[in-house]
């Protein structure tokens, strides 16, 4: 008996030790993020000291003050919010409509069209960047939200993910709705979409994070400072004196908080969204 309890205690201690080590490893992995946040709260003089230090001696908001007073970061945030929010909504609409056609209807050329959708995965967006830039600039959409959104409006991964989900929907329910005089589109809007909320939200969240984080395309199609997104803006911040790192880290912290926050809040949803779209694909 006594021996048994001892064994259990040893086991429990080992497990606690193991978990503590695992958490410490996590902290080491995330040093860049902690560093960024700590530097953003440091006094400018401390950032300039050599050798550099990790923890702020005195916490201060002066870097944040500089960022908000001397840069249009609030406007950058608004631009990013408009871009990420509206493209994610549009993506959900285009993807769920297409998924509806692919899962509930039979028509000629269905397989070819489906392959055409999935085939876009093989063409990296960077390869077609230059031509898309020319299209947008010829259409006069440089420095517009429409121009920034255009290339993100459809995602093959989302179509695939939502289609997989629709395929699990029972056909008898659709027939019952049909008998009740419910048209196809009405069925889609008032029955299918509401019952598919879980997959739609995970598609929305992951596409929000990915468009919020995109850099190259918004940088290409904007040149007016006021139309920049946060991701572009944060790399182009200019401050008067040489001490730029404090405000730059403050701005970086402001930029990373929304996505990290969304990630922490919806981790399970995001994971299931990504895995659902990719593993089977």
């Amino acid at each position, binding site marked *: 008996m006594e021996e048994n309890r001892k064994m259990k205690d040893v086991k429990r201690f080992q497990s606690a030790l193991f978990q503590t080590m695992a*958490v410490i*490893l*996590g902290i080491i992995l*995330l040093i*860049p*993020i902690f*560093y960024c946040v700590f*530097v953003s709260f440091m006094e400018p003089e401390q*950032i*300039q000291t050599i*050798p*550099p230090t990790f923890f702020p001696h005195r916490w201060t908001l002066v870097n944040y003050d500089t960022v908000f007073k001397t840069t249009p970061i609030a406007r950058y945030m608004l631009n990013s919010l408009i871009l990420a929010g509206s493209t994610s909504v549009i993506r959900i609409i*285009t993807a769920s*409509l*297409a998924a509806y*056609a692919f899962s509930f*209807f039979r*028509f000629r050329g*269905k397989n070819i069209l489906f392959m*055409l*959708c999935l085939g*876009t995965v093989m*063409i*990296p*967006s*960077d*390869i*077609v*960047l*230059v*031509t*898309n*830039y020319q*299209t947008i600039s010829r259409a006069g959409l440089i420095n517009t939200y429409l121009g920034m959104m255009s290339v993100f*409006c*459809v995602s*093959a991964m989302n*179509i695939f993910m939502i289609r997989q989900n629709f395929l699990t929907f029972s056909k008898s329910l659709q027939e019952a709705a049909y008998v009740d005089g419910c048209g196809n589109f009405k069925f889609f809007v008032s029955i299918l979409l509401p019952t598919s909320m879980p997959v739609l939200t995970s598609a929305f969240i992951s596409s929000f994070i990915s468009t*919020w*984080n995109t*850099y*190259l395309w918004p940088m*290409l199609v904007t040149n007016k400072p006021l139309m920049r997104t946060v*991701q*572009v803006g*944060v*790399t182009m911040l200019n401050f008067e004196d040489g001490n730029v*790192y404090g405000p*730059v880290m403050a701005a*970086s912290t402001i930029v*990373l908080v929304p*996505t*990290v926050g*969304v*990630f*922490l809040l919806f981790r399970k949803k995001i*994971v299931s969204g*990504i*895995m659902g779209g990719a*593993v089977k694909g």
Partner: protein
Amino acid sequence: MRKKLFKKVEPVLYLLPALFFIIFFTYYPFVNTIIKSFFLTNSMGKIREFVGFENFVRIVHNKEFQASVANTFKYVFTSVPFSIIVALVLALISAGNKRLSPVYETMYALPMAMSTSVCAMIFQLIYNPSLGILNAFLGTKISWIKDDRTALYAISFISAWMNTGFNFLFLLAAVRSVPAELIECAEIEGAGFLRKTQKIILPIISPTLFFLIVNSLARAMMMSGLVIILTSGGRQSSASTMISYMYSQAVLAQNYNNGYATAIIAFLITFVLLVISFSFEKRTVNYD
């Protein structure tokens, strides 16, 4: 009659919005880029005359382009193995469901929420020769990004760090799907941690590993954002990649001839690399 016609076109109507964007922003520019790479174009990108393979021949002999191809491979073969191995170790650590699991799992996955530009700004400070903590920690005074000998590896490390979270999530799910009886069995027979991993876990998670390798390869071949931000538009030829070279040629120098040809070559190289990895798949990946 009209009702019948509507029934026929109805599904196509649902597809129209998605097809419009797919055709207009993926297939059209892809075909357009291929066609234009065989022509000379002016600084507006308008076709002037057919030159066959001349654009390709010129670019293949260009020193900067050659460097960018070699660099891209160096990025791929450093950052991809590094991030997958680190992610695998983290996944093996988190395999068991413990009380603190949600805490460290979230920590290990978190880098995937980080954006290219924020990571570039943070590591720019970390790598700073006098103010950065890396040199303070190592006791060195290296200018990691400006120095041509270290620039590529310093940037490759950032990209590996950013990708660990994504790879970790997939590997964790795979490692957890290994049947517990199999592992217990091996433990009873006295297999150590390494042997257990090598003989039982790796074969079972090999499909996931393969998926991650292919996915990371494809993404690393297109690497550009970090390079463009950290080396002022990819002008530093010791760190440039194929796509950053394409960007500096087409967007900064308005030399579309080189830009289109680079894009097509980058596409072909990536495609061939993926085909090669799929041929390895049959020999090494276990789907049973």
